[in-house]
């Protein structure tokens, strides 16, 4: 109700939250990721408690909060980290290696903890904080002392997550949004991993003052990521087949100001193609490729298109697919609280489409799992300026292989390449004195996974 108007928001320090801003909440160190919009009334359910999000307004992104029990129920309070606070943990790491304890004597017979549920409830009623309950649980555990310090830390963390959950306030960026979706609902973004997304943006040379043509059937993550890189200059043209734009709900999760939102336009493909001489675009000719199998291969194809691309008139396929069904997920994102954000994705005005037709787009990105890559790119390449780069994403290899083969045959582009990014995260052990052990633990890791 008291949402600030976009002008005010654009003058806002983007590193401090404001009323009405969109945030990503990381609960218990990545256990749960929630997108939310901060208003005085919005709340977040953690465990079985509802916490008001008001205390998060006006805090810098990166702040850490903890659920505490107050007189009027649970509330979120800010936790300030001490910068040198890790010294005890460093010692812990030494202990892992030097101590001789192990967990072989621990029997899981459910008798180790002497505090009952009622005891804990009683503690809560007396106004004990989450940390105090965790301390009580540790004190009343018969086996805690005999655990290795690694197990002790694990135990402490597990109890802290339950009795004193922590909420980290994060900025919704292409990176964090893509990571969160990939973790929770990968199908909604077409299994587009953050490293693939970053490659698409690089390969398509997305930068300020560019006019980027996108086919985004990955929920809007691509459109949003491009708009983020344009920073309120140029345009991202989100094009679609037929009459219904593809859903781009994810764009609303970004904290885009008015200036950036104005640069996100939608246009049916036929509007972009129609004035081209000779080729009257038959967008209905595109076939829908349905792929229901699961596979997490990411493939990206990128290239630069030369101007002497062969005219397409003679090459159009004459298929009879008059009407088409595109399978997309129209369901709204379940984890954003519905609330007004600045409007993005207006239909492109005539002046804009005219300009694009005259000048050509600076680049093209296709991330459309349900469209045939070859017929789509064949339709769209003539809209690109000469020498403009393009990149196509698909989670399967074969459509891109066929597409690349056809592009080569018809000499429509040079510098074609299919590549698959392969990313892996490392767990780095901190103590330098035990490099050998670190390597060993890596080896074990590989064995057990």
């Amino acid at each position: 109700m008291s949402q600030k108007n976009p002008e005010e928001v654009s003058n806002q320090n983007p590193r401090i939250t404001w009323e009405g801003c969109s945030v990503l909440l990381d609960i218990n160190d990545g256990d749960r990721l929630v997108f939310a919009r901060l208003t005085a009334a919005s709340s977040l359910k953690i465990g079985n408690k509802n916490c008001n999000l008001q205390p998060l307004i006006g805090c810098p992104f990166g702040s850490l909060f903890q659920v505490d029990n107050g007189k009027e129920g649970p509330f979120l309070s800010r936790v300030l980290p001490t910068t040198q606070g890790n010294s005890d943990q460093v010692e812990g790491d030494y202990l892992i290696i030097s101590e001789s304890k192990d967990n072989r004597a621990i029997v899981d017979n459910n008798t180790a903890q002497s505090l009952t549920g009622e005891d804990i409830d009683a503690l809560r009623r007396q106004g004990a904080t989450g940390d105090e309950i965790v301390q009580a649980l540790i004190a009343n555990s018969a086996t805690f002392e005999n655990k290795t310090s690694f197990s002790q830390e694990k135990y402490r963390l597990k109890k802290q997550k339950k009795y004193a959950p922590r909420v980290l306030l994060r900025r919704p960026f292409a990176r964090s949004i893509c990571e969160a979706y990939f973790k929770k609902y990968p199908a909604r973004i077409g299994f587009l991993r953050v490293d693939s997304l970053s490659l698409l943006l690089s390969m398509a040379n997305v930068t300020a003052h560019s006019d980027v043509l996108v086919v985004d059937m990955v929920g809007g993550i691509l459109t949003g990521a491009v708009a983020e890189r344009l920073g309120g200059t140029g345009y991202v043209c989100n094009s679609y087949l037929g009459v219904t734009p593809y859903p781009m709900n994810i764009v609303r999760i970004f904290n885009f100001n008015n200036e950036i939102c104005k640069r996100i336009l939608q246009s049916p493909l036929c509007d972009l193609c129609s004035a081209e001489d000779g080729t009257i675009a038959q967008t209905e000719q595109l076939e829908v490729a349905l792929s229901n199998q699961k596979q997490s291969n990411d493939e990206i194809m990128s290239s630069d298109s030369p101007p002497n691309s062969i005219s397409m008139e003679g090459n159009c396929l004459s298929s009879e697919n008059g009407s088409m069904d595109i399978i997309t997920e129209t369901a709204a994102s379940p984890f954003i609280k519905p609330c007004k954000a600045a409007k993005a994705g207006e239909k492109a005005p005539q002046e804009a489409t005219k300009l694009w037709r005259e000048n050509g787009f600076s680049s093209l990105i296709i991330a459309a799992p349900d469209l045939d890559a070859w017929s789509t790119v064949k339709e769209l390449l003539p809209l690109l300026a000469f020498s403009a780069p393009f990149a196509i994403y698909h989670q399967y290899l074969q459509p891109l292989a066929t597409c690349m083969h056809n592009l080569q045959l018809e000499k429509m582009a040079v510098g074609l390449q299919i590549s698959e990014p392969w990313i892996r995260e490392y767990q780095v052990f901190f103590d330098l004195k035990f490099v050998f052990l670190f390597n060993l633990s890596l080896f074990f890791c590989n064995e057990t996974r």
Partner: protein
Amino acid sequence: MLPTDSRKLSFSRCIADGDLVIVYERHDNMKAVKVCDTGVLQNRFGVFKHSDWIGKPFGSKVFSNTGRFVYLLAPTPELWTLVLSHRTQILYIADISLVIMYLEIIPGCLVLESGTGSGSLTTSLARAVAPTGHVHRAASAREDFERTGLSSLVTVAVRDIQGEGFPDIFCGLADSVFLDLPQPWLAIPSAGKMLKQDGILCSFSPCIEQVQHSSEALRSNFTDIRTFEILLRTYEVREVKMESCQGDEGSSLGSLPCKRRQPSSEGRNGSEISSSPTVMARTSGEARGHTGYLTFARLKCVT
């Protein structure tokens, strides 16, 4: 290299005197050339006169005195990286794109870069901060970003970052810091002072021992410390004719890979079903095994 409001790639944009073009011979053979009225390019295809290029659109096919041709492409940071790759050890495109994404660099950001390499990352950083941001690069030698037209976005200073740290004038102003140093842990305390709260640091190191040492140094002031390795696998695509068991044995050599689509009627009466050409992909052999580790960390939020 980067577009401005009035100067961007378009159907009408032509190559002019003074432009930087990428001469494309093959996907693995490119060269950056500054176009000059009187200039000539000589390569294995013969002699190309620059004056023939002027007035042609970017992406054009141009011919040498012997009738062989090359393409003239508009430069991008990716092509620039490929051109540079012949010179020194550089960061590759997969690493670069991940760095830009994870450092959350958007237009207007102030980025500090400290590196010993050839500056292949710098052009991508400049592209990401344009038009209002800036990249301050500390290097062991003064380089020229005039050629790529990025001098308004990049400032290069000669400075020993490991010894002296970053200059104090950037204290608390940097959105992101990138370190490509042999002993990054020496620069991490200074980098922490330069960053805004919640700002992100990235350190690129080829060896895991360096990563460990850096991670140790990061622990006191940084959070969300994560280390990645990213590689790119490329694929070769071929159209192959597959022989089926039922086909006549005489033409069993038909399964050789062929680049062009061949008429499927050659000497095979009635067995067309068994020899339809299929497009297939296989991984290229030349994939790089390891480039380096990328360690990211976020400055803790203390106020």
